[in-house]
């Protein structure tokens, strides 16, 4: 399986649209893309995970690196529109208390 990473600049923030699976094989690609955004001083980064149907713990590692990088660069990281299975990972690991995660699907329901 694969992961596509699409970055769009809109309304003063970087929106990262992900589609596919995040695992040990695709994580390095995501990490590179994500850190290049969070390392920009003061940047607002929003990652949309609506099209991500599988993520393993390596993916969590990428977002934790991203979070640490926002603290060093005064940037912001927000994850939106997570599928239940992916959200559960953030819930179990207690990372929802540390990373800004918004599960609700925009415009849905």
């Amino acid at each position: 399986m694969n992961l596509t990473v699409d970055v769009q600049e809109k309304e003063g923030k970087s929106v990262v649209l992900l589609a596919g699976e995040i695992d040990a094989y695709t994580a390095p690609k995501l990490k590179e893309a994500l850190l290049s955004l969070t390392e920009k001083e003061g940047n607002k980064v929003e990652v949309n995970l609506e099209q991500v149907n599988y993520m393993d713990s390596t993916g969590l590692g990428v977002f934790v690196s991203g979070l640490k990088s926002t603290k060093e660069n005064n940037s912001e990281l927000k994850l939106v529109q997570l599928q239940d299975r992916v959200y559960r990972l953030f819930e179990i690991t207690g990372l929802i208390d540390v990373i800004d995660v918004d599960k609700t699907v925009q415009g849905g329901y």
Partner: protein
Amino acid sequence: MDALKLDLSHYRELLKQYINTQDESALYEAEQISKRSIQHNISLEEIINTHINALEDIYPELPENIQHSMSFLLEVMISYGLALQEFQDLRETQLEIKSEISVAARMQNTLLSTVKPDVEGFDIGVVSVPANQMNGDYHHFIHHEDGTVGITVADVIGKGIPAALCMSMIKYAMESFPSEHKNPSEILESLNRVVERNVDPSMFITMFYALFNPAASTISYSSAGHEPGFYYHAADDTFEEIRAKGVVLGVTDMAQYRQYEREIHAGDMIILLTDGVTECRQGDRFIESEEVLEVIKSFSHLSAQELVENVYKHFEKLQDFHLRDDFTLIIIKKDV
């Protein structure tokens, strides 16, 4: 270097003999030349070069187009020789790495080895299988003098060798804690600071730590973002998720961990696991945790050790015998 050159006159005579007679014995000699060439490290292009020189000696009037074709062949062989050399170097390096990894894996097994406790009134089963050579899962039993047992189940996020090295650090950090310091919440809080200070930002650890008191038949526990285990109530034949709140080790230095306690009744089971168990997949389908519990239930008449082994075999078969993630399952059964 002379040692690396073929004997031109010998080759020329042999070639002449073969051109004239197509004699088998010349072919046999040719085979000997090949063998000696390998022994003496004579390159492919050197053999071709010798062939060209011999040919030109035998046929001084060799047509120009044939001469060009021979130069062409020589060029091809030079590139081929370089590529072959590179390939062989890589293969050697690969073999070296492979053997170093297996040494590391053996060392890991020794460093992280643990002894399953033998506790009166309880039956304990453990299975832990790595997906690759090195195991990123970790479980450990600490036998305290007062008869209580510390039980750790952990999963390092980040796979392979760095994860395994990290686990060794955790084990030694835990062993250095004073023995009166054995409350799950305190242990996780101390470990969290160790991991936060010493580990790469993309690496972190989920851990479930329990202090099991067989005499009182109680277990107290805390979790650092670890996959929840299950509690089986024999009285009404139901499973309950063991939820415990707490963030994974190594993300923030201020993390605090709540401690929970429960009593274990006759026939009940405590099931501790890593996400290799609950994240099993069959093709594209995920195995739901209800299914894991059903499988556990179907083997629950067996001894704890047979139980965990059968559950493992069941999921190994479902995944075509190829684990995607390390698999650790511990079951503690209280005798009836």
